């Protein structure tokens, strides 16, 4: 399909130009960080604007990648992200589907009760006690189970499911499918964009999560990547400020390399998820 006519063409051209400009402007923060991470110290110190590096060094990366703990932190983060997302998605999808059914008695009350927890909670002490009582302190599960469902994501999933026309499920129902069958045979394949999006949200938030780790994990072997890198940066910052009595301080390039090391893996999963919502698949593929 294409748009003919001068107006249509003009719009297309303007649209592409505008999007390209926006892309360039938003690329800048990432580009800048990337360049700084590869720029030698003296150049970083002498100028604030980095469009292109005058010389490149991978020293910062060499330093980071040589830290033993980086790798153990990577493993922890990958495990928590993958397993955590699977757990979260399972619980969220099941609940969102059930709650998307208007005819479910009590459904609205349950949904309200869930939304209520978005706002009100018991605070840090009782939460800590629960995790402790469950014996999860200092285990990887403390980073997955207590945050298994994010209500925001549950609401999004539910609203996607609500918007699926009932008629699509009717035929399967007549074929004798129960609700599990309906969900996995009809609804899930139809909702791949939503599932991909929410999975992405979960994966990113689990990858970036560090507060639960701060609270529940003491064992450095179980520190996820974000906690390791953040504490490396923040504590060096603190070392600066406290009059700096800690042994070593990091340069700018290491700071930026840290961002790259922590962000690049999670950025790379994006195109994988993107597959599911750039192309107009799904509903169109189903006969109505």
């Amino acid at each position, binding site marked *: 399909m294409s748009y003919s006519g001068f107006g249509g063409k003009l719009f297309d051209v303007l649209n592409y130009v505008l999007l390209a400009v926006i892309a360039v402007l938003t690329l800048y923060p990432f580009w800048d960080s990337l360049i700084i991470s590869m720029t030698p110290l003296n150049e970083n*110190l002498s100028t604030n604007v980095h469009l292109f590096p005058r010389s490149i060094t991978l020293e910062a990366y060499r330093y980071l990648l040589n830290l033993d703990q980086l790798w153990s932190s990577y493993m922890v983060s990958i495990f928590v992200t993958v397993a955590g997302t699977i757990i979260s998605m399972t619980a969220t999808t099941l609940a969102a589907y059930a709650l998307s059914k208007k005819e479910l008695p009590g459904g609205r009350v349950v949904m309200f009760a869930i939304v209520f927890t978005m706002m009100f909670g018991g605070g840090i002490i009782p939460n800590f006690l629960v995790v402790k009582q469950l014996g999860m302190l*200092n285990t990887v599960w403390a980073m997955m189970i207590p945050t298994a469902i994010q209500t925001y994501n549950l609401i999004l999933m539910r609203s996607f499911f609500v918007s699926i026309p009932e008629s699509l499920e009717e035929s399967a129902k007549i074929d004798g499918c129960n609700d599990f069958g309906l969900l996995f045979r009809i609804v899930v394949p139809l909702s791949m964009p939503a599932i991909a999006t929410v999975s992405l949200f979960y994966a990113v938030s689990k990858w970036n999560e560090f507060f639960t780790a701060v609270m529940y994990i003491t064992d*450095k072997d179980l520190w996820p990547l974000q906690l390791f890198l953040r504490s490396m940066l923040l504590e060096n910052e603190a070392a600066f400020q406290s*009059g700096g*009595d800690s042994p070593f301080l990091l340069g700018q390039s290491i700071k930026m390399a840290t961002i790259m090391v922590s962000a690049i893996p999670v950025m790379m999963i994006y195109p994988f998820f993107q597959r599911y919502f750039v192309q107009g698949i799904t509903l169109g593929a189903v006969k109505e």
Partner: protein
Amino acid sequence: MKRFRTWMLFTLIAAMVITATACGGGSENGNAEDGGGSPTKIVFLTPGDNAAKGLLPGDRVLAEINKRLDIDLEAKFVPENGFEKINVAMATGDLPDIVTINYPSPSLSQWIDEGLLIPLNDYLSEMPTVKEKIEKNSQWTAVDGKYYGYPFIEERANTALAYRADWLDTLGIKPPQTLDEFYEALKAITTRDPDKNGKNDTYGLTAQKGGGQFNFVFFAYGLPHGDWVLDSAGNVIPVFEHPAFKQGMQYLRKLWDEKLIDPEFLLNDTQKREEKFYQGKVGFMQTALFRHVNRLETSLQKVNPDGKLGYEGPPAGPDGARGMNSAPKGGLFTAITKNAKNPEKAAKLIEFMLSKEGRDLLELGIEGIHYTKEGDQIVYNEAERAKDGFASNGWAHPLAWGSVVWPLTENYLPQTEPQAERAKESVDIATKYMVPNLLNTTTAEEVELGGVLSELYNQYFTEMMTGKRDIDAGIAELSKKWRSQGGSKVLDAVNKAYQAQNKS
């Protein structure tokens, strides 16, 4: 195919759930058994040394401590400067045997009030180093005659004025000794193009956000104490009601109005401030020196090979008074909790960390393994040191700093330090100009209301300095507001504490 995937998912989850429950509880009963001849388990919760590496399994220094003290030490370092985590651990009954927390702090006061900490008094006889240190400097930290822990309050300073010595040479001026000379120096740097780049792009002085960056001006005008001052009747009043404050404010305002101070200094964090120094945008700044002397100078020279770092004490005021920063009233506090199964052993561990024997072990490691001695010289065995979590270049073990002592306190620099002489000299200068406090103690009222009040002060200070507020009117209004926002209550308490201090 689809069905298969679904089943995979369920199996995976079921497996994980089972492992989760199977793993649970394992960490709970770690210190249940304590009988027999096995060494006492001691859990030590501390923010520790932020920049140190973590303890590695099989750490030989830790093993050595355990051997010498017959204990089984588990040190838990809290990430992210996490006093919050320590607070939560204590509030949920997850008490370690020994804990380090910031001092003074609401949490610490509460722990003492509620009896979570054990007084050290009974054990002091076995803690000679601790006893000596407390009795020499920190008797005032006692609560009802009892010492609830070892207060670590820095007695030395490392902050002074740093400047571009090469610029002063170029301009043909000497390091300024008085406020007038300081003004002239800033003016020369701002207007006479010290970097000879033909551009009017330099400022005399920069600072950073967070306040407290220009106190040396007030001290030069004769502000006698860092925390509180006395009025003519001998009552305690806030520092901004001292005449020196107004004079200092006027001086700073003059610097600001004549654009001798970096107009964007409020945006600076430490890193940004240093960057401006390296990049030749400013000539003077107040900064931490000591170990940073070498770092600052080499960084400067990376940008500008001819750059030279100078440092000096604060300029003197009209009556010759000088002062850089007030002596700290707070720091860290290491205490034994009521949970300690063997408080005596815990006390011995604290003593050990401060004793000569302990310092040698934590700073240098085990002789023959981590280092060897050649006469006076210490030769570091970096390969062995790395195995036990020592930082490189002669820096210390994860347990060395951050609980009861910092390198500054000990004047510790490894022998690899390139500018050790200058580093130590800078500390002598900074310490010489440390301004004493009127009171040793921090009253409970200050702990509670201090945040709000200093916040108010900072805001008025900035507004008066940057010309958003008239100085006379500003000080008058600050006095009024400050009192109504809890200052009166604090003053009452402080006056009482002052009288009590004078009596004893």
